[in-house]
């Protein structure tokens, strides 16, 4: 399904854009991903290969990102745990 989005490009930028729907995107990787997701039927083998590579690369980045998120989650969790242990009444006192 194709959705047309309203876009707005600042005057001093010339972004890469999709050759099929002219949607401006921030980088070549995003164009490759966008083509693979929204125009899959129209791509030749080479372009599909490019999409797979971009998706793989992105998965690498995501792995690092997930680790950071996990770190923040641990902080939130233990932050709450210690805060609660400080503020709740101890039933054994």
């Amino acid at each position, binding site marked *: 399904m194709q959705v047309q989005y309203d876009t707005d490009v600042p005057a001093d930028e010339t972004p890469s854009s999709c050759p099929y729907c002219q949607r401006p995107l921030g980088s070549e990787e995003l164009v490759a991903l966008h083509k693979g997701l929204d125009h899959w039927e129209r791509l030749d083998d080479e372009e599909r290969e490019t999409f797979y590579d971009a998706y793989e690369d992105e998965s690498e980045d995501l792995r690092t*990102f997930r680790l950071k998120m996990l770190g923040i989650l641990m902080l939130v969790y233990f932050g709450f745990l210690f805060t609660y242990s400080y503020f709740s009444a101890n039933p054994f006192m």
Partner: protein
Amino acid sequence: MSDQSHRYRRLAVALVGTLLLAARAAAHGGALRASAGSLSVPTWLFLLTGGGVVGASFLLASFVTDRAFVRSIHDWHRTAAVDSVLNVGAKLTRALSVVVLAGIVAIGLFGPDGPDAAFRNAAILVVWVGWWAGYVATVYLVGNSWPAVNPWRAIADVLPSFGFDYPEKLGAWPSVVGLLALVWVEVVSPLADDPALLALVILGYSAFTLSGALLFGTDTWFETVDPVSRVFSYYGRVAPVQRTEEGNLELRLPGAALTEPKLVDGADEVAFVVALLWVTTYDGLVGTGAWETFARTVVGAGVPAVLLYPTVLLVGFGLFWGAYRLAARYSRKTAETYLTPQAIGRRLAPSLLPIAAGYHLAHFLGYFISLSPVLVGVLQNPMVPPINPVVIVLPAWFGMLAVTFVLVGHLLAVWVAHATAYDVFPGRLQAVRSQYPFVVVMVLYTMTSLWIVSTPSGSPPFV
């Protein structure tokens, strides 16, 4: 799906469970209104925990990075070919609802009146307990049956229409104004105590609605202008049962229909979704003790009481709408996209609907359960209702349920926003980053909502 992502998902479930338990333990005794129990932890910590649950659920959603998995959840559906059955059924329910509407108005005008009318007059009980608390909940929990029930539409269908062209420029704005106006009337006038007044307001709304349908045609009026129908059509999108283009029924996962691209189309519809969220909050806000203190102080300082409620209604709506637009503007930066903030705002607006639904349920389920035997008793003999109606007394843990509904609404909203962002942005990391500003707004809003449902109640002064 690799083993690794399964592991992540199990981890996610375990963490959410832990956080929810922590939040529920915190809500110990924080009952919804009336039974003002004391929290076992300071209020700020309770509110922070609620915000923490929403923030953590966003962190967990960002672990779900498999596009195919997200899509499969939202595409899952089962269709039942029942269009002919539905059409016959709709004729019956519409005829019936016109009779019910006439009955409500008649009992409102000529039925039992007096100081205890709120518990003895069938008009008040049917409208507030039956319709606004009970029926609305079925719309977002099951599906939107309002088009088949709407008595005004049934009447308008048999009336002629002048077929004037509706000015396209106006879009959904009249319904935004209508929604705010209806809530203002509901807050400042004793509609839940005075049956005759309630009947008159219904008559006024009927006259307005029917003349609108007469001028512009039934479909235009009820699909564009009528605020009540629009509330139901948006609430209905949260529900698992959806109506397809062909008129069949389709079963989907709750909230799955909210990621569709054309659901909210234009700034006017975004404003309506935000208004829906705001009026639900406003309705709760004016019932708190803190509001009572605030209102008395402000009026004591010389502000006319009659201006206080509409001003706060409009200012609050402005604040909510401004916050949402600001989040959309920042989202363009964090996601490093060329989409306009308006385009981002339009796509993500439906994710606010589960929050409104969760909040409505938190607010009205207890009310519905405790007064439903009164409703049944009164309906058995509307003109001579029982003198001492039975009211169900809710157990102490019911307040925790209310808190849970608020949180579940927020969790569903976080998920819907995540899935929508995956649909909009080609980069998965970009999609997660587009959510940062919205999550900040959601966390703040959760804390506000939890404060409203857990703070001691008051009665709105000067109304």
